[in-house]
């Protein structure tokens, strides 16, 4: 085998180079992946990260007042790493939406989760007509819109007394002027927007001043609720009580009954049924 020895030598050189790459790159990748960062002066520090959920495509994120990134259209979350430990102010915004601001505490090698709530300034609002226009009616039909009739039944049945809502293991209910939430899942799986309340097994989400007329989960979310309160209209409220405040935004001026069906809000105001889309 005359060529075998030169072949083996070449093979050993390649193996040597690749082994060197392996032993150099693996520790670097592992350190970086575990949250270690290199700071000026070659100081290695333990950092943490933030994971922002429910970010609408095209929104922008800034950290401590500095622009960080614009979210691609088809993305809905953002993971930021390499943040120094301590409190960081996160701001998410998008044109024609109310901004979302939260101060999150970053611990070494840990990730804090932010449940971004961007509510449109001018949500799509549409009246559900009560009657079909005369030109579209079939002979002999009384002219009442089927959709209106169905929604009307649902909204009239929607009684706030004893109302409990459950979504993805989060339970919300009302006690007088207060709204509470509880985590139904395993204790250690409690999401960060709910504080694990060992003694009372319930979290006070909202203390109303006026009478609460209705409440439900925000469409598609279990961390945000919709409340209809006398004197305050219908508004969104995040459960997350971390500072600086609970983000809340008014979507209807008048308080009244509503129902969330297939991620669309239907509001029963006087005799009218109004469709509200918060996308």
């Amino acid at each position: 085998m005359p060529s075998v020895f030169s072949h083996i030598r070449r093979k050993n050189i390649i193996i040597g180079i690749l082994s060197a790459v392996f032993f150099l790159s693996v520790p670097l990748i592992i350190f970086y992946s575990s949250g270690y960062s290199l700071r000026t002066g070659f100081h290695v520090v333990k950092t943490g990260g933030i994971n922002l959920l429910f970010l609408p495509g095209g929104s922008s994120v800034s950290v401590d007042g500095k622009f960080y990134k614009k979210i691609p259209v088809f993305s809905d979350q953002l993971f930021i790493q390499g943040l120094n430990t301590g409190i960081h102010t996160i701001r998410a915004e998008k044109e024609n939406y109310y901004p979302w601001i939260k101060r999150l505490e970053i611990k070494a090698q840990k990730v804090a989760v932010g449940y971004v709530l961007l509510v449109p300034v001018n949500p799509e609002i549409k009246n559900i007509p009560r009657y079909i226009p005369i030109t579209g009616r079939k002979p002999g039909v009384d002219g009442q819109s089927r959709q209106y009739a169905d929604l009307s039944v649902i909204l009239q049945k929607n009684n706030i007394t004893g109302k409990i809502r459950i979504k993805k293991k989060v339970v919300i209910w009302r006690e007088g002027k207060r709204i509470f939430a509880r985590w139904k899942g395993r204790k250690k799986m409690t999401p960060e927007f709910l504080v694990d309340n060992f003694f009372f097994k319930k979290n006070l989400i909202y203390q109303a001043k006026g009478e609460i007329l209705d409440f439900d989960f925000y469409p598609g979310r279990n961390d945000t609720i919709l409340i209809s309160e006398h004197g305050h209209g219908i508004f969104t409220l995040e459960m997350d009580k971390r500072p600086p405040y609970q983000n809340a935004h008014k979507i209807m001026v008048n308080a009244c009954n509503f129902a969330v069906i297939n991620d669309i809000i239907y509001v029963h105001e006087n005799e009218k049924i109004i469709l509200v889309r918060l996308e």
Partner: protein
Amino acid sequence: MLQSASIPAKKKIMPAIDFSRYKAGNALEFSGRQKFIYRALEIFPGLLSWSTLAVCVAACFIAPMQISIFIIAFDVYWLLKTLYLSIHLWNNWKKMEKNLKTDWKLKLAGRDYTEIWHLVILPFYNESGQIIEKSLKALAEADYDTKKLAVVLAAEEKAGKNAEELASGLCKKYKKHFGYFLVSIHPENLPGEQPGKGANTSWACSLARKKIIEKNHLPEKNIIVSVFDIDTVIYPQYFLCLSWNYLEQKNPELAAYQPVPVFNNNIWEASAVSRLMAYSCTFWHMIQQETVNRLTTFSSHAHSLTALKKSGFWQKNIVSEDSRIYWNCFFASRGNYYTVPMVYPVSMDANAGKTWLETIINIYKQQRRWCWGVENIPYLAFGFLFNKEIPFFKKIYVFITQLFDFWSLATNPLIIFILGWMPVLFGGTQFNTTVLSYNLPIVTRNLMIITMLSLSVCAAISVRLMPELPERMKKTRFFHVIMQWVLIPVTINFFSALPALDAQTRLMFGRYMNFWVTPKHRRKN
């Protein structure tokens, strides 16, 4: 201790004292302590693979941090290994291109190769005349003095009268092209045999020795025996290339000669999965040809008759006779046997069933049969335990490299593509709030993308290796050939890792496999 070779086959023979005739098949051939040892060695590969997977899965629950670090390191290893193999593949491709352009007759000028006889054994079972004829035609048209070829068409009695008649018909048609042409019929149900290619080939070879070699006084030391799967179509200068490689060796009888199996015969008719598996297999063997000290024999290959005679010819009691004959010769030559990479192709059939589903099932079964080569692990380990003639470090090297190959085949793809994501799913809240848990899928995904990019080497070579596109097919088929490589994460798990794990599990539980003949279908042109 080891039993004598003179005990009849039914009384569990183990001729291990004479390592030139070390032909152990499985643990059932032993008794007492030897049976226990052999059985333990049969369990070992499967146990090792399952333990690896079990430890990884358990670690996802118990120690997600540690397993995540391991997975990242393993991903980097996999990336570098792919790069390393791609370098070998590219080198081998360049060599093969050069070898295909080489005029081997010119290269052999001045060498006395006219004395070399080539005994070609073509074992078959129920394959069609179309397939056999194509192989015979290629032999008859070989760029070599075909009168120096002795061809044995080895039929099975079990296949019935049709097979015998087919062989006789082909004999009549083709015998004039060759020095000798013999049809052998391997009798059914011979004692101590497992039906399959090994028993048939061995029978054909002994018949050829009697009826061709001894009868015509052909010099045994000048005979090279090529055993071809029946669908093997040689390239014109195969015998010239083989003769050159044979003459290049200091001790040609201490070497096996391995061409590169290229599954080109029906590649345009094969489905994407079938093409992918065919090329994966070809590329694996091209890479193996670059790692000479690990190369063994596979499918169609050649040995000197002297080496075969010394080792007692092919084993009749096993499935993977193609690789086992190498190890038989290895023990018979006290560990001095090696395989010469010919870096010259032979064309074979890609797996193509009548329907897509049949093809998929056939691919799985064929891969499992190939992975059943794991039966060589207990054979090697047992032989190494009792053989004092092979140097200790050589035994260790051979055993570890062989074991590692089977272990990595069964476990590595699963670790990479499936277990890699498990810590995030099962690591628990504590782990899922760490930076590492967020980075694990990102790092794994990015490393896999880079790894997949190195497959572009495979895609490029596969296009160059393909035969001319039939006129009835559109040029866009080339695009499919390139794009098929994105299926690698699927095929590597379902048609490599799972069959390997299946074969190892069967061996672990003593459910010994029988020889499964891959059905061959070709479109009539």
